[in-house]
């Protein structure tokens, strides 16, 4: 019985030290989590705010449709348009994007308002190139735009 008691005591002590070690690890993990939470709070908050804008465009077709809708809604005179899907950065979360190359020519104020609206209504889009020259008519402006709309990897 004594031997059994000794074995039980040793087992209890071994379990106690393991438990204390595990509790120490848990406290460490808790501190690490809190520190990580504080460190990434801004990033995560911005992620929550921005993610829906990125998710609004699930595929290149949706991006193309969105831009076409904005062109129609803005009643902008479109000279040419070209859409292509392009790989951006394979290692990144945003690995591909729809690249829209648009040439528009219309009234200066109207075109500027339209461009502002595009950037406002597709907040995740990137105007990669914008070239502006005087248009054929007095108040017209000729704008060549390259717009990238990111498509998130699902």
């Amino acid at each position, binding site marked *: 019985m004594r031997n059994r008691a000794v074995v039980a005591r040793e087992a209890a002590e071994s379990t106690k030290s393991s438990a204390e070690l595990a509790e120490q690890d848990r406290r460490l993990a808790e501190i690490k989590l809190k520190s990580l939470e504080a460190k*990434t709070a801004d990033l995560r908050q911005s*992620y929550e705010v921005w993610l829906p804008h990125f998710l609004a465009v699930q595929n290149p077709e949706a991006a193309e449709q969105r831009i076409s809708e904005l062109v129609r809604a803005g009643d902008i005179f479109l000279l040419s348009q070209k859409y292509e899907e392009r790989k951006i950065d394979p290692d990144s*979360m945003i690995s591909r994007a729809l690249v829209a190359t648009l040439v528009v020519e219309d009234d200066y104020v109207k075109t500027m308002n339209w461009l502002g609206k595009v950037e406002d209504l597709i907040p995740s889009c990137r105007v990669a190139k914008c070239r502006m020259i005087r248009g054929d008519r007095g108040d017209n402006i000729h704008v060549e735009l390259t717009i990238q709309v990111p498509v998130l990897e699902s």
Partner: protein
Amino acid sequence: MENIIHDLKTERPNISGGLPVFYKIIPIAFYLAVVLSCVLCLFFFMNFRHQTASKEVWQGRLNAANTEKASLIGKQTEMVGTAQKADGLAKWLEGSRPIQPVTVAIGRSMTKNSTIAELTLDRNPELPAHTNMQLKINGGGSEQIETTLDSITALNFQTYSANQTRGQNAIDFEATLIWNDK
């Protein structure tokens, strides 16, 4: 039948001296040993039960700590994953600042005698947060460039690597625009 025999056993003389007196404690010692062994057995049994119960308590704490630790590590992993994704989006957004306000500000900065002949804003493919600006202005001079740069600076953009070439009644201006976080 008159003689009744009362005792058949006849007197015999002692042949040995008998056991010593201390031998009398042997049974006492025996019973004491029995009692003591019972007490010790009970003590070890109680100790065994106590240690077993203690082990169970510590085992429970160990399991709970391990479960909590696993959950915390899971949360950490999830948080790191979210932060990495957020970082990816932030990098994209850093190179996606709207350029329409810049074009409008440049247009508005033109003075009476100056007009924009051509304006190109081209993002650096390697560093999209850097935008190369090429501006051709008809008329105006250094003052016009100063005014234009002021209006760009007012939008929190800083100009780097500025370079201007003067032509006949025209200026070609080139610079890299970088968003100023301050």
